[in-house]
Structures are given as C-alpha cells and as structure tokens.
C-alpha cells in the first residue's frame, strides 16, 4: 500500500492512498473490476478484453510497450535439424496469421513490425511487413524436403504468454509442423533461456532498454547472452559498427545486419506487445499511457478520481 507524500517535488498527489492487490487469475481480476472492488487492473487479454470493452463504465487502455516477441530456432546451426534450412524458417514465418492473432489476443493494439528490435530504438531498421501465406509456406516446406511437415519437438515459452504460443502452434500445425507446448514459469523460463538449456523452438520477448546495437549484441551476435549460435558475416559486420565513429555509416551497418536477420529468418517476429489495462468508473485519470511505452499506471501523483 502506498500512502501519499504531501511534499513530493512534482506536485501533491490527488489520491491519498493506493492499495495494490495481487490477483493472479485474469478472470478474477476482471470480475473484481466489474464489481467495483478494484479501480485499475493490469493485463486483461483476448476474449476477456473484449468483454471489458463491451462493459459500460469500464475503459480499456492499451499501451504498446517496447517488447517485441519472437520465435527463435536454437537448432538452426545444427545441420541435422530441419531448421537449418532457411526455407523451413521462412515457411514458419509465412505460416503465422499475425493480424488475426493480434486481433484475437490484444484486440489489434499490438504492432506487427517484423523486427526483434523495438521500433522506438535508435538505429531501428523497418523490415518489410510480415506476410501470412500458408500456401506458400507449404510450398517452401515441400521444396525443403518436408511435404508433410515434421515433428518439431518442443516449444518453450513463458507461461504468461501461452495464449500466444497456442495460436502460433495452431498456425504451424496447419502447415504440418507439430510441436509440444512447454510453458515455463517466468523465472524458470529465463533461466533456461539464458543457460541455453532449450532446444527446438523458443518463444520469447524482451523489454530490455537500449538501442538496436545492444539488442543485436544480446540476441544475434556471437557471445550474446541469448545467442545460441551466430553467423560469421553478421559477427564481422557487428565488429565493424562497434568501431565505427561516423553515425551514418554505423547506422547503415546496423541496418544491414537487421536486414540479414530478417532475410535469413533467424528470428520470426510475432508482435510488439500491447499491454491491455482496464480502468473502472471511479477513475478519471488512470495514469495508464501517460508515460509512452510504459505498461503500467504512472506517475502515481497524477492519478485522479472522478468520485471518491
């Protein structure tokens, strides 16, 4: 519980007391908001979000955060794995119905950028928009030698995003790629991700701050915390830009790297997540969306109530 501090440097908070309640179950959260037990809720998705929108007195506030999500292929450097073939990876990219998933889970508020780098970052390169073409995907798979698809093994994800995983798996299955969903609790997931314990397919996202270079460094380049492998030409380019002082040339190199990542389908971008929050009738200024790219209600001193 937070109590208002009258002498705060910005201004005196309007709301005297903020009580934080932890409600792990999404449906229960929404029910609490509907009944007026709470005034603001974080993270309501899918059909529950639609319900929130429909309910009078409640308002839905989306916030696109700087967390792109992706599908990663840790096996792509293994010559024996189907994912080694670029065509298979690109097939996976074509199999996913980005817009419908976006619509279904986040009511269309997420941004499909095509990049693992958040679009607000410095040195961001805008890839061509991801396409949904299952017929072409099947063709590519057949060309790569898998006309009936294949068993891809396990699909690891952060349990909070299993809804996304299920939708993606559904799409993959349509072109014949079957996998078993393995949702893990967040801490365990990141531990495994970091320690490179995962195989086959990984669905992850990252909201870490930085710029395109830092993002690439962590996820693409050799030695990166989350890089399960690397490509020598990309590594060379990255070393080049690290030493480059001229801004324009550095940007060009970073753009080139991102382009390669996109062409080779090292990652398949899924969306840049929109966090959906809800506010009840009692709230006038919820603080949601006041700070761009920030998911939660802030600054607290700006919160106001319409009625006590």
């Amino acid at each position, binding site marked *: 519980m937070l109590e208002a501090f009258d002498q705060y440097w910005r201004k005196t908070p309007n709301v005297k007391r903020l009580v934080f309640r932890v*409600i*792990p*179950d999404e*449906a*229960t959260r929404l*029910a*609490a908001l509907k*009944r007026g037990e709470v005034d603001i809720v974080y993270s309501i998705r899918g059909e529950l979000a639609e319900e929130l929108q429909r309910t009078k007195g409640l308002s839905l506030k989306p916030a696109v955060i700087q967390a792109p999500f992706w599908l990663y292929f840790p096996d792509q450097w293994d010559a024996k794995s189907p994912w080694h073939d670029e065509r298979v990876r690109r097939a996976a990219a074509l199999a996913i119905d980005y817009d419908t998933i976006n619509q279904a889970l986040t009511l269309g508020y997420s941004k499909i950028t095509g990049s693992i780098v958040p679009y607000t970052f410095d040195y961001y390169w805008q890839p061509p928009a991801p396409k949904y073409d299952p017929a072409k995907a099947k063709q590519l798979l057949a060309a790569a030698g898998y006309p009936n698809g294949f068993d891809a093994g396990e699909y690891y994800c952060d*349990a909070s995003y299993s809804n996304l995983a299920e939708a993606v798996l559904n799409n993959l299955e349509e072109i014949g790629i079957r996998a078993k969903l393995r*949702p*893990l*609790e967040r*801490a*365990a*997931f*990141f*531990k*495994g*991700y970091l*320690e*490179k*314990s*995962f195989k086959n397919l990984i669905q992850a996202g990252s909201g870490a701050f930085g710029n395109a270079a830092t993002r690439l460094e962590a996820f693409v380049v050799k030695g990166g915390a989350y890089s399960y492998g690397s490509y020598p030409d990309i590594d060379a380019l990255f070393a080049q830009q690290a030493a480059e002082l001229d801004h324009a040339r550095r940007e060009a190199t970073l753009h080139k790297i991102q382009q390669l990542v996109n062409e080779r389908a090292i990652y398949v971008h899924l969306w840049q997540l929109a966090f959906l929050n809800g506010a009840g009738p009692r709230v006038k200024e919820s603080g949601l969306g006041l700070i761009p790219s920030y998911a939660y209600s802030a600054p607290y001193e700006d919160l106001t109530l319409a009625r006590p």
Partner: protein
Amino acid sequence: MTRFIARRIGYSLVSLFLLSLTIFLFVRVTGDPAVLLVEPGASQADLDAIREQFGLDQPIWVQYVSFIASLAHGDFGQSFYYRTPVFELYLTRLPNSLMLALAAMAFSLLIGIPSGILAAVRVGGFWDKAGKIFALLGLSVPSFWIGLVLILFFSVYLQWLPSSGSGTPLHLLMPAFALGWYFAAAHMRLTRSSMLEVLGSEYIKLARLKGLPEALVIGKHAFKNALIPVLTLAGINLVIMINVAVVVETVFAWPGIGRLLYEGITFRDFPVVQGVVIMGGTMIVVVNLVIDVLYAVIDPRIRLEA
C-alpha cells in the same frame, strides 16, 4: 486395550512406511530423478549439483533413509516457484482447504442424511426412487463440471455469486456445493442402508412392540444408531475431500492445498507436488488410525474381535 491400540498403531506405521516407500521409489525409479528435483530450465551443471546434493549416486537404501529423515523433520524441500519451504506453504494453505471441506461436508450431510432416512423409511416409495437417481447422479457427474455449470448460472447469467477467489461466505457457496455433491450422494446411500439395517434390528422391533410411537422409534432410537457409521465415514471423507478438492479449487481459484497442487503441476514445482501427496496420504492414514481407536474405545466388541 493397549495391545489393540499398539497393534493398530503398528499397522498404521506399516502403511506410512509403504506410502513413503512407494512415493520414494516412483520418483527414483522412473527416469532421471534429478530432472524432477531441479528447477525447470536448469542447465547440466545444475543437474549435477542436484545429484550431489541429494546423493543420487548413493545406494538406494541410503537415499531412502535420508529421505525419511528429512520428512521426519518436516523438511519437504523448497518450492521452486515460491522459494519457501514446502511444509510452510502447505500449512498456510491448509486452513482454506479445511474451510472448504467443512462447508462441503456440512452440505453433504444436510442433504445426504435426511434424504437417506426418508429413502429408508419409505423403502420403494417415491423418495427412495428419487434417492436412487440422486445417488447415480452423484457418482456420474464430475465435481468440476458441476462447478463450471454453477459458475455459468450463478455468476455469469444471474450475477448473484462471485465466480472465483475467496473471502466472503458468498465465495464459499458454489465450491462447497460442487465439492460436496459426490459425497452427498455417498452419505445418502450409506444412511439409507444403515437405517434399513437398524430398522430391521431386534432392538427396534422391541421398541415397536412396546407400543412406542413411530416417530419416536425412528427419530430417537433408529436414527442415533444408524448415524454412527455415517459419521465415521464422514470423518474419513473430510480428509479425502481435502485431497480431492484439486479440481474444484482450480475451477474456483480457491487458495487451498488443492490449488497448490495444481500450481505445482503447472509450474513443474515437484517438491510441492511430492509434499502435498505425502501430507495427503499421511493425513488419511492418521485419521483412519484415530477413528479406529475411537471406535474401539466406544465399542468394546471391536477390541475383542481383534
């Protein structure tokens, strides 16, 4: 008397031993126990560390002894997810389950006993037939489905009751009903047959011959005697309820040990799963023991039978 109790305790100890042995063996024998005992997402180094820590390369009886030793100290390991000792976690959640079980038990007895008596007193009649149908439904309709249907009606359509969570008596109504449903039918069946048995006994025949009014016969004499086995069963069932409430607690997001077990499964938090199961089994063995001893204290014939 003491000999009986001693024997009975011995019997329970054997059961506990077998229970712990079963659980222990299943973990060690199926696949690689290190994978279970370590956090999901762990690396090879972690697996090796766990092997060392638990002495998984030592002879199996050594492992078992240390397993039992830690259990005896209340050390059930630590939850990966909550990062607190499992035993502590269990004790915090147990009161919630107990509350739910008591409510469900009350419901099942309130419905089960009167309907059972009615069925017995009017054997073959309408109430008996209705009772039979109720018994069948109790067995065939799973508790989680009842729970879901209840939510649909009372939370979504009618909006009378909260659909999940806990805190107010209103939150308790639906889960208690869903959990108690099966047991209501069971208690009804037992009350009925127990009542029938008693009604046919010499004691009752005598009371009737004496000219006592029927209501008194049933209400005072038959009822009390018929109730004994039912209440005994109810005692056991209370503990069973606490353990099988997993699904109901999951449906209603009720924060008891059933839900703890569900979280353990979902988050691959094996120490939690193991802990809940061991505690559950132990509880049942202990309750059985207590009830048997109480029985022996009350009814001398049992002691002699032994």
